[in-house]
């Protein structure tokens, strides 16, 4: 092997660094550098420029071949530049990749999935929003945001989850709501003062069916021969009546009723029942009878909630007849066993029991125990440290599998294979993958992967102009976000070809979105249903509202953005961003310049520096001009033709669908994207090699999506530690 710094000529370099693969015998990539070198640098310019580029990026020689020193790269590029001129690129600064921790934090999305699997509780989507992105996929570098502020929020969430999951025999605290007179509403009267018959009330959202104490406090200004009568009311109905015998605030009376009230908004009030008004009465104090309501209050719910089914089931499994401490111990074991990657040891359970021993009841103990199981780094952190290239342990592999296919925790069966370290056996893994993909939880794959792959996460912060698109609302946005997830999931579960993602003539939408697309409503519900698109030009995700909206500006479509999106998200062939000093094209004010946007872009494509990318992007975007900035079909004439750099004519969305279906970049990019999402790190050259070897075994010309997923899982990329950790 060459000593660093000794190589000085190109011949030596090729001999020592390249000839093993690019020599005389069966050269890789059909590139025989030894032969080329013998012909000299004056010949085969294109090949040498390719070599220069590979060297400038330091991708050759590949891992695990020893890497030449920087000075050596510089020397070789210098030699090439002397002969080939300035087209030889500079040595790039080494692409720095973060040292990748094999251990990462679960993402907010994965935490929500785990909580749902463990306790059957759906957490609000924004319960843990403070995640900072490092990469296209949230799993890459997850855990960068892990500081006191984040942990504070997480502990509060774990707390509220455990409160909701485990109910105490006594209610935690009895909520109390009260409103004083001036805050009560009463028709045509001010505040709590009732000078004619009527009700002063408080509207309250009762959190659930339950027992409540309702109270009303009032006093009277007496007049006439009878005392004032008042009533406590619920939704206008009298539930208690009382005579106010005294006069003035010192003789205020309180009506109290304990009763069952149903969940939802109700009005609790005090009514004045017998108004009296004689303005001509001689004694001014005898002219007017009034009631002044001082306060209305609600306490409750007073009754404990029945145990949740999660709680009941957990205690049942933990052995109902057992003595309390033993039952608590086995309940903790069950929880930790399910939630943590590694099985808990006896001492872990012992520490949990010590933690909860001061709690006043077994239920309260269980509650704190659940919070602790969730707060523990054993739940929060996933992954495994191991020697490069070695297989993952059973628990680590099972965790990775459950996160990839379900976005959730392993279930009982997978856990058994995990803890017995049998999940690594190819046969077992194959069977588990089949089983897990047929499980409804496999929607977690689509729900986690698709929005990131298609870059529609940004739809959440994208606000189309309200003025131009008043019909775009939060519901429509949700329906839009669901569509590609459902399409992907259906294609996966039904064993359909992956290319259907860009050519399916059907989709999964609800009535609102169907109406938005101008489809005849065949469904009669708000549920997502299958709609045929054969009569339309929408094909696969290319016609999805989420994509068409997210790749538009708030007020108009952007062919450039859409073209860029096709290249970037679907083909993995992102054009470089415009150079910093590029003149910015004012595409949005075509009218003022008397040019159409197409004409402006055409002009733009004539500028050197802009041309090379825009000739590739613009036609792809123009093919989608049939759809407006919120994805509706435009009627009438739309200029939707374009010519690709290779001369191919592209006509409208159908043309684009055809082009993508046959594009050689589509499937490899989809596979790489899925694999990155699956292993949670940017793929190194070595990773790509491993993946490519696995995918080469797929011989179907139009492979089902499920085959790609299965192939990734069964590859060493998924099952082993990365081999080239020192590079990362």
């Amino acid at each position, binding site marked *: 092997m060459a000593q660093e710094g000794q190589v000085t000529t190109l011949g030596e370099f090729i001999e020592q660094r390249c000839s093993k693969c690019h020599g005389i015998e069966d050269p890789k990539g059909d590139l025989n550098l030894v032969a080329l070198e013998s012909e000299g640098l004056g010949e085969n310019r294109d090949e040498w420029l390719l070599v220069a580029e590979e060297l400038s990026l330091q991708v050759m020689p590949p891992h695990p071949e020893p890497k030449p020193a920087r000075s050596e790269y510089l020397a070789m590029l210098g030699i090439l530049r002397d002969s080939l001129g300035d087209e030889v690129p500079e040595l790039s600064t080494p692409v720095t990749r973060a040292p990748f921790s094999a251990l990462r934090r679960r993402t907010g999305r994965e935490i929500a999935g785990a909580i749902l699997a463990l306790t059957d509780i759906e957490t609000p989507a924004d319960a843990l929003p403070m995640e900072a992105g490092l990469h*296209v996929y949230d799993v890459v570098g997850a855990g960068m945001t892990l500081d006191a502020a984040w942990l504070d929020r997480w502990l509060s969430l774990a707390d509220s989850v455990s409160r909701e999951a485990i109910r105490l025999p006594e209610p935690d605290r009895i909520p109390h709501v009260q409103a004083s007179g001036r805050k009560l509403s009463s028709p045509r009267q001010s505040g709590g003062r009732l000078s004619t018959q009527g009700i002063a009330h408080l509207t309250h959202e009762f959190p659930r069916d339950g027992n409540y104490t309702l109270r009303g406090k009032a006093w009277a200004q007496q007049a006439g021969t009878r005392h004032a009568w008042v009533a406590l009311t619920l939704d206008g109905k009298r539930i208690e009546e009382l005579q106010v015998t005294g006069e003035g605030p010192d003789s205020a009376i309180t009506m109290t009723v304990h009763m069952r009230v149903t969940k939802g908004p109700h009005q609790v009030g005090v009514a004045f029942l017998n108004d009296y008004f004689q303005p001509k009465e001689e004694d001014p104090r005898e002219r007017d009878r009034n009631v002044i309501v001082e306060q209305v209050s609600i306490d409750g719910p007073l009754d404990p909630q029945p145990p949740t089914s999660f709680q009941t089931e957990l205690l049942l499994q933990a052995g109902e007849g057992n003595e309390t401490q033993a039952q608590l111990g086995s309940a903790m074991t069950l929880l930790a066993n399910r939630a943590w990657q590694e099985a808990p040891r006896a001492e872990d359970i012992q520490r949990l029991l010590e933690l909860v021993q001061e709690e006043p009841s077994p239920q309260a103990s269980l509650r704190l125990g659940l919070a602790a199981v969730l707060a523990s780094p054993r739940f929060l952190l996933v992954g495994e440290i191991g020697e490069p290239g070695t297989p993952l342990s059973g628990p680590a592999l099972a965790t990775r599998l459950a996160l990839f296919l379900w976005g959730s925790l392993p279930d009982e069966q997978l856990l058994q294979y995990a803890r017995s370290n049998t999940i690594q056996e190819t046969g077992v893994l194959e069977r588990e993958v089949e089983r897990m993909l047929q499980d409804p939880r496999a929607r977690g794959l689509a729900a986690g992967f698709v929005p990131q792959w298609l870059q529609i996460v940004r739809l959440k912060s994208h606000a189309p102009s309200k003025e131009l698109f008043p019909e775009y609302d939060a519901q429509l946005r949700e329906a839009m976000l669901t569509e590609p997830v459902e399409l992907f999931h259906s294609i996966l579960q039904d064993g359909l070809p992956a290319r259907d993602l860009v050519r399916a003539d059907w989709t999964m939408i609800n009535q609102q979105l169907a109406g938005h697309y101008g489809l005849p409503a065949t469904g009669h519900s708000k549920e997502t249903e299958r709609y045929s698109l054969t009569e339309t030009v929408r094909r696969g995700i290319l016609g999805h509202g989420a994509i068409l909206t997210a790749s538009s500006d708030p007020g108009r479509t952007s062919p450039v953005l859409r073209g860029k999106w096709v290249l970037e998200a679907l083909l993995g062939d992102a054009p470089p961003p415009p150079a910093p000093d590029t003149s910015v094209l004012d595409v949005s004010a075509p009218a003022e310049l008397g040019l159409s946007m197409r004409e402006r872009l055409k002009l733009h494509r004539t500028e050197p520096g802009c041309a090379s990318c825009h000739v590739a992007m613009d036609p792809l975007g123009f093919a989608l001009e049939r759809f407006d900035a919120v994805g509706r079909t435009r009627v009438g004439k739309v200029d939707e033709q374009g010519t690709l750099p290779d001369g191919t004519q592209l006509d409208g969305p159908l043309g684009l669908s055809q082009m993508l279906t046959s594009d050689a970049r589509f499937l490899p990019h989809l596979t790489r994207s899925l694999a990155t999402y699956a292993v949670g790190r940017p793929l190194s050259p070595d990773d790509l090699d491993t993946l490519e070897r696995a995918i080469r075994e797929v011989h179907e010309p139009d492979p089902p999506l499920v085959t790609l997923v299965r192939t990734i899982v069964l590859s060493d990329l998924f099952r082993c530690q990365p081999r080239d950790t020192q590079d990362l």
Partner: protein
Amino acid sequence: MSLFHRRTNPIDRRALLRGGSAALGLPLLEAMLPARALAQSALTPKRLIYVYVPNGVNMEEWFPHRPPEGTTAAANATLSLGPSLLPLASHKQHISLLSGLTLDKARPNGDGPGDHARASAAFLTCVQPLKAEGAVQLGISADQAAAAHLRGKTPFPSLTVGGEAPRSSGQCDSGYACAYSSHISWRSATQPAAKETDPVRLFDRLFRGGANLTTITERREHAHRRRSLLDYVREDASKLHGVLGSTDRQTLERYLTAVRELELQLAALEKEDLHEVADEMRPKNATSKRFDRLRIFNDLITLALATDRTRVVTFLTANEGSNRAYSELGINEGHHSLSHHGKNPAKMKSIARIDRANARVLGHLLKGLASHQEVGGSLLDNSAVVYGSGIASGNAHKHHNLPILLCGRMGGVLRPGRHIQSLPNTPLANLHLHLLRCLGANSEQHGDSTGVLDVV
């Protein structure tokens, strides 16, 4: 429990919002200071607030149209504001207009496109961000350097607030990690400070033990339980820590650091001289109206500073490169798209309109700070508020002569009400270093600073 704890003296919302020292009355004035601080009223704490607006501004409307006549010295002495800053006219005595400051590390410097990501990343760090797949490498931000200096003085070493949630994934700007565009506050080269974007949750975290617990007993119980829980997980993490290699320890070390900080926070929140905050200060429901939301955040920032929960705040009003359409201002095109106005007058006008609306929100913050009286003047008198962007004009992505305002007196070390013109290419980091020094930190250097900014 002490009979004399001050928790029964909540700061009243109306008093705080109504403003003016008269509204508060002297006895209350003292009640608003922690007993500890009262004992050393000469040492009224200094506060540091950074407010960032993305996509640059319309520079033609930001600076005054006609420079004041006379010599540079005379020009420095009188402050006139550009049309975009007119909403701040009534606060002129609290504001200095800064010009000539440069953020060199937001420039490409060989890294190609990505000016937006670099602008927010470098604004407080003044370090060139690393462009790489799945990685960040930056530096500590000025606010975090300040927080490190003040650690232990307040329950929350610093507060990181945002008007827009960070993007957890996806492409943000030309190959830079999204974290750069959505964070100006960085705890270290590789760790942004988690950003709070929900006013209600922010309130609960600051004043309600994270769980809308209204009574002190409830919060005590909650704190007690939280402490045992932290004990438990710390031990758990320490056990794991022993078996890991160095790179893998990083995640766990962050976890452990967070646990330790939370323990300190809990202890500090139990101090008897802490001010309670009345329930009616809790924001009702998170409004979806953008400028209302920003105002609510500003009220909470003021409240957090007034009750000495923290002394250092960053507020990223929207993520850098944000393309939201300001429909509430009658603007239908996205902010980022508009900022590339190509000198189109209509678009430049729209940008100025956004700048003005943002200035109005800053005015709200200044008013809130100014109306809260404490020993040594108003809260604003004891604060420095740095307001601005890491991009000058969004159209050209330039990073010199940035639009920066410096508000407040910071306990008398700043003399606002002037136009402070620095020599061209003066590093923004010099301002950061100056403020850090004013805070008492003896930093030698911050980012690419070449000295302290001459503000005299």
